[in-house]
């Protein structure tokens, strides 16, 4: 076989293997596969090693939360999806990262989860001044860069950081509760992960 033909065959075989790899199932949650195409859509790149494992774990968590929201019958309507897609396009221009179908699909899932947060998570989070202030003084995260370092200084300067603290507090509480619910759901769900240790 001439060398250049052998080379072309090798390239074609590599391309086939690559395509097969792209469609590879990395995890399954209650029968729903998570492929590396899903990882690529969510992260914008081909990941490997620990970063891939973390991304798959987060997609598993996402799927578990989605299933909780769907069981509550909170599915997004087509009208809601259309509206959110139109507003996103207005704010950021045409979608550049995923195909319109894929974008609408993940948007629908996220609106469903958002309904769940509205009805079942957010109302459980106490947002009174004392709670937010206590959180700020004790736990203000490192990414609140300008926040004072010491607790005493935070106590004193809280009024300046009130709104910022409220935002970060609510955000972290939503994430914490969702994470706990996903962890609980995982115990009874049929989850198989094919990457990592």
């Amino acid at each position: 076989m001439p060398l250049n033909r052998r080379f072309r065959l090798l390239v074609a075989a590599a391309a086939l293997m690559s395509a097969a790899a792209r469609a590879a199932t990395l995890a399954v949650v209650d029968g729903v596969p998570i492929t590396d195409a899903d990882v690529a859509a969510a992260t914008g790149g081909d990941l490997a090693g620990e970063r891939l494992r973390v991304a798959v774990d987060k997609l598993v968590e996402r799927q578990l939360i989605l299933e909780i929201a769907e069981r509550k019958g909170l599915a997004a309507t087509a009208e809601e999806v259309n509206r959110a897609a139109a507003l996103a396009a207005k704010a950021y221009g045409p979608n550049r990262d995923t195909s319109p179908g894929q974008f609408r699909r993940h948007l629908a899932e996220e609106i469903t989860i958002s309904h769940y947060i509205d009805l079942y998570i957010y109302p459980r989070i106490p947002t009174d001044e004392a709670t937010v202030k206590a959180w700020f003084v004790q736990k203000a995260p490192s990414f609140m860069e300008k926040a004072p370092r010491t607790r005493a200084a935070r106590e004193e300067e809280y009024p300046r950081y009130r709104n910022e603290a409220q935002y970060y507090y609510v955000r972290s509480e939503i994430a914490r509760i969702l994470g706990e619910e996903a962890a609980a759901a995982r115990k009874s769900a049929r989850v198989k992960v094919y990457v990592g240790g």
Partner: protein
Amino acid sequence: MKTLHVLSRSLASLLALAAAGYAAGDGNTDAPRKPARAMWVTTEALYNRAEIERLVATAAAYDFDALFVQVRRAGDAYYVSAREPYSRKLEGQPAGFDPLAETVRLGRLFGIEVHAWLNVNYVWPGPDLPAAPTHVARRHPEWISVGRDGRRMTGYSRRDLGRADAEGWYVDPAEKAFADYFAAVAAEVAANYDVDGVHLDFVRYPNYRFGYGEKARRRYMEERGAPDPQLLGFHKLDDGIFRPALGAEGLADRWYDLRQLEWLDWRADQVTRIVAATGKAVAAAKPGVTYSAAVWANPEHAYRYVGQDWVRWYEDGLVDVIIPMTYWGDADKLGALASRLEGCRPGHAGVYLGVGTFNHGELYTAETVAGLAGAPVDGVVLFDYDSCWAKPGVLPALVRTCPKEKPPCP
């Protein structure tokens, strides 16, 4: 600069003769239409009669079609108004001096359109109160915008304003009574002066940090059934919304993203309401007058940061002419924006492109304008007259390079 002074004086006298025979329209509607050549003129050129004469003579010498003349700069009037205070910058001028009337009179003589440029939401530089008791900021301090820190701009120091990236005090666009107030201000100008157009600028929020007054937030929550936007104050929405959110943290962020999109939409609606109400009032006061607005050039930035949904204004024909202020782009970018707007679509607004002369070298304007030759724009507006005057090469170069005809519609 001196050369230009002499040139404009001698040309002014010559052109005065020529202009005497100029009629506003020559009746030949089939003639190819060249893109309008226009300039924004800030109030500094209106401080006295001699400045106005120099302005119009220069515009005539360089074949300008239109002047956008700033006559409401900071909640004050460079015309005679029953509604707003006469500008203190005009103190010392002869009694009855009316810069807008004078500009219109000379513009008519030279066949140059005069559009009354009104700053809308920006009303005062601060931090001290305006002296005039009839100033809108004194009569309605409750209309001045509130920051997400809960403080009204009237309580901001000069340093605070700078740190918040605000030029001065703005009326909150969500203040419903202001839409009626401003519509009446614009209608007064249209009714009392023979202007060719009414032109809006600063019709927007100062930036995303403002608009958090209790009244506005309450109305938003009622109208959209959404949580308090104060909660969103520090959420930075980015185009990651086009990717699936990862994990519990990503989903928490997405919950904010979706609410942020709603808040941005509501804010943009408040600005659009002012544009629509003013357009209606102006048209009623003077049918046929050209209604235009200067806007941030990047449509998405304009929408997100300052609430200008100007693509909607353009598409819905809420204005007759939209003028993106493309001060920072090169000719290719400007052409691309013009093409994106598809300026030929019937029922839509016309498109003039704002070109910066204040922030570029003298040849930049000429090159930029020449680069627009193939773009379907209806006009070019230079910002601004003062910088053209300070850079004597700009105007002669412009005359040579400005497109002679608008490209035909496809």
